[in-house]
């Protein structure tokens, strides 16, 4: 957590008070919540009433996808094929249990949405959901163009902007989207708190029923210190975004150049630009990503393969498969993420360790 977010968290956590209570401590807690709402709204180009606090990205995505689908009572959903599982699985659930028909929107080999595939004819579309930037390969999606199409057809567009906020400029109102998911832990705030920015005219059926705390769309006692720390973090990363993005882009480009130099067979996945500043993603032919992960982990270098299933088994990434990779290539890939603590020394350490790790992993072969 960012130090200032942590400080804000600890300070607020010392106070007593339920933001829904009417007494003094309750009013103080409510003041913290509403101030945080205003700060987040200002930082992200939204109105305060459009900020709905949630328990994080998964809930925000589910609330947007299922809530808007139910509220709109139309059968079709358009979703990109490279969404995070929080969106992907929510859409699949609607497909399996609510008789939704889904247009899985294809992407090109760089992971960029094929806008030509968006068909909003027929008046039967409940919503479109396309992430702002992909969490695995860092591709930034054409949200503005998509929002124009959606607006022309009168269809709400939801975007999962969890990877984007703090890394690229994000402005809710200017983007034209109807709903946008954000979360704390991806931007230096706490775990377990996030928000759905939901346009005032966009209806969403609640997932959680109860006290109706958040615009009657989301119930549950609010996590006051979490919300306060979340707001501090959002405000900070948005303020620092340009400078941090410039720093990370330089560092990331150095990482990409030096990895390709150290391991010439490696292939960069995703576009050189536009791309999330802290993201680099490679395939290492002949290696299993999880073997590389083990070897680098042993040298205190934390990298990621795609996602793991419940049992912890690494799965070939649906993102890479959607980009046209075969399953073997998909399993040979690894993501390197740079963030606010990353330094040039980290790149040195990675480049020093990587060639030997790739050699070993290649010898270990594939399963």
């Amino acid at each position, binding site marked *: 957590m960012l130090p200032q977010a942590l400080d804000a968290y600890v300070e607020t956590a010392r106070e007593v008070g339920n933001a829904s209570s009417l007494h003094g401590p309750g009013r103080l807690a409510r003041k913290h919540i509403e101030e945080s709402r205003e700060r987040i709204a200002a930082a992200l180009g939204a109105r305060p009433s459009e900020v709905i606090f949630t328990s994080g990205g998964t809930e925000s995505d589910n609330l947007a996808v299922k809530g808007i689908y139910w509220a709109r009572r139309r059968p079709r959903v358009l979703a990109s094929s490279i969404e995070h599982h929080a969106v992907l699985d929510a859409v699949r659930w609607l497909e399996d249990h609510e008789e939704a028909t889904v247009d899985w929107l294809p992407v090109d080999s760089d992971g960029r949405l094929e806008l030509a595939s968006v068909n909003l004819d027929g008046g039967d579309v409940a919503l479109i959901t396309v992430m702002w930037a992909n969490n695995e390969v860092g591709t930034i999606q054409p949200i503005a163009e998509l929002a124009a199409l959606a607006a022309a057809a009168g269809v709400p567009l939801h975007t999962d902007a969890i990877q984007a906020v703090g890394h690229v400029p994000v402005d809710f109102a200017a983007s034209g989207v109807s709903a946008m998911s954000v979360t704390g832990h991806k931007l230096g705030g706490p775990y377990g708190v996030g928000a759905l920015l939901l346009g005032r005219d966009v209806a969403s059926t609640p997932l959680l029923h109860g006290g109706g705390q958040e615009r009657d769309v989301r119930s549950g006692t609010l996590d006051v210190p979490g919300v306060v720390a979340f707001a501090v973090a959002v405000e900070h990363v948005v303020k620092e975004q340009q400078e941090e993005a410039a720093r990370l882009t330089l560092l990331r480009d150095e990482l990409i150049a030096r990895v390709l130099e150290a391991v010439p067979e490696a292939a960069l996945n995703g576009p050189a630009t536009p791309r999330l500043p802290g993201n680099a993603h490679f395939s290492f032919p002949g290696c299993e990503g*999880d073997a590389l992960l083990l070897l680098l*982990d042993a040298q205190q270098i934390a990298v990621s393969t795609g996602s793991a299933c*419940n*049992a*912890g088994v690494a799965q070939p990434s649906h993102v890479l498969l959607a980009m046209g990779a075969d399953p073997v290539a998909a399993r040979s890939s690894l993501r390197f993420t740079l963030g606010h603590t990353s330094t040039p020394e980290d790149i040195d350490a990675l480049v020093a360790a990587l060639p030997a790790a790739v050699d070993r992993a290649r010898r270990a072969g594939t*399963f």
Partner: protein
Amino acid sequence: MRVLAAMSGGVDSAVAAARAVDAGLDVTGVHLALSRNAQSHRTGARGCCTIEDSRDARRAADVLGIPFYVWDMADRFHEDVIDNFVAEYAAGRTPNPCLRCNEKIKFSAVLDRAVALGFDAVVTGHHARLLDGLLTRSVDAAKDQSYVLAVLTREQLDRSIFPLGDSTKELVRAEAHERGLAGVADKPDSHDICFIADGDTQKFLRQRLGDAKGDIVDDSTGEVLGQHDGAFGYTIGQRKGLALTRPAPDGRPRYVLSITPVNNTVRVGSAEALDVSTVEGDRVVWTGGERPQGPIECVVQVRAHGKELPAVVTLRGDRLVAQLRGPERGIASGQAIVVYRGDTVLGSATITAAA
């Protein structure tokens, strides 16, 4: 020394890993995901590789403070163990999948991968000892697993560590409690075949091989006594489940004597007809690394947890022949014959015939 601890999520492998840590080894835990469609929860003492087992293994690794990963060996396991299991039954033999898994997965695919990744050895929770590199029974005779390890070569054993062979199971459980491995300390022992979750081997085989009606024949008279739904459903020495409507003339129980897949026939007869004194096997492995000379005075074991049978073993080419000192019943092809001198394993073979 860098070692890879195979952690199933059970008590044995958790304590084995803990002892490796205590011994000063650089230990990394790995859980092998062997099921293509993992069940979320374990039911009773059967099954393995549920998500719950994976979590239990991870939790044990956390308690020990060691890195932990999951390796997806499901495809290898399916091809080398499960498909083989079904094929062996279809061929009228009675395979031991645990042995096969040790031979093809744990001490082959996993060990090879570990070595390639820079590990020196694999640590498992098997109840067996390595004394001067020789595979030896556990001190806990009831839990001894030397039989299912006897297919390993000297090279494989040289890269294996079995930290539990000096302890009884009871002691291992007590130690798990003391070490704070509460999640696994009282998990039930695994029994039966891990990939047949409900324990119904017949149903499992029928689903894969389909019904194939055939005759149950009296071995001495050749008379057809009844019908069966698939010869794979029978094991040499089996008495129950024959569903013969006519009793034997002498009124005594009848047993499965042989299974002939070619004509899908199960032959039955008296208990005495089950007696054999010569057992032959192929795929001979000398676990100590050296092929012994001359006839070997020894004891053999012909099934997991079976009793020790005094025998003289000789080699004929690449086949092993054991002359039993006394008759033994119900020796099935496909099982291993393991040769011991005292508590030390000399080698093993896969049974091909008994007479």
